[in-house]
């Protein structure tokens, strides 16, 4: 499995081949929080055009919430970060640029950090 590492708090663009199962790692600035324990983390992907997101068209989302089974895993050590598991079904029918945004929600339901950018889904042909 390939691993993509995403730094936090600045626009982050990254490519992902359509239909590939990949683990995306977001690095969290320790100034935001010293621990991701007791936080909720959301990562959502939207359609966009020329960098302008269409918030009315969310393509898929991941979170640390228990249902459905969480695809986001918070990590406190050695590097404050969280991983997002992208499955084959998430991107197999996608192509081109999509806007992505991650948000960290504190126990007090405040948004304390995030990251955003373009996820470029690159073309693949094999459908197994």
């Amino acid at each position, binding site marked *: 499995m390939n691993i993509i590492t995403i730094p936090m708090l600045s626009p982050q*663009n*990254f*490519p992902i081949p359509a239909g590939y199962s990949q683990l995306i790692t977001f690095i969290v600035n320790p100034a935001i929080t010293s621990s991701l324990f007791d936080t909720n983390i959301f990562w959502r992907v939207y359609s966009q*055009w020329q960098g302008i997101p269409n918030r009315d068209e969310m393509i898929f989302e991941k979170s640390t919430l228990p249902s459905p089974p969480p695809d986001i895993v918070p990590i406190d050590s050695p590097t404050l970060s969280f991983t997002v598991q992208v499955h084959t079904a998430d991107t197999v029918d996608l192509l081109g640029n999509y806007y992505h945004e991650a948000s960290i929600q504190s126990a007090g339901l405040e948004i304390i950090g995030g990251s955003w950018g*373009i996820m470029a889904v690159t*073309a693949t042909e094999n459908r197994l």
Partner: protein
Amino acid sequence: MTDLPTSTSMKMRFRQFVPIPDADIEFALEEAKLACGTAAAQSNSDWIDDQNLIMGIQYYAAHILQMTIQRSASGTGMIKASESTPELSVSWTTPPWPTADQITDFNQTMYGMRFKALVRKNFPAVLVVNSGVRF
């Protein structure tokens, strides 16, 4: 309908764009599709066939990317006119302003010129005969 160009196909077709991030290429393709039409709009786009439409999108996007490379090389938006070393004498030229008969900068890259040639082939000057309309 053959699939329209993607960042993957652009990097295979134009190897010099391999170092460019996929997201940047996709943005150029979005602009090219707007200019040339897409599969959904093709019935109204009047390109000769799918292959001509695809070539048009490829050349339009390649032109945008090549212009970005040329102009970013200066850090000023201008195009490098000459450079000599080791004296390090570099001069920059300002791209021409659009004119009535030359509304874009297509002549500044080989992709732009190919796009213009393709457009001429697909959209020749119209010869209008008996165009009068009476009500």
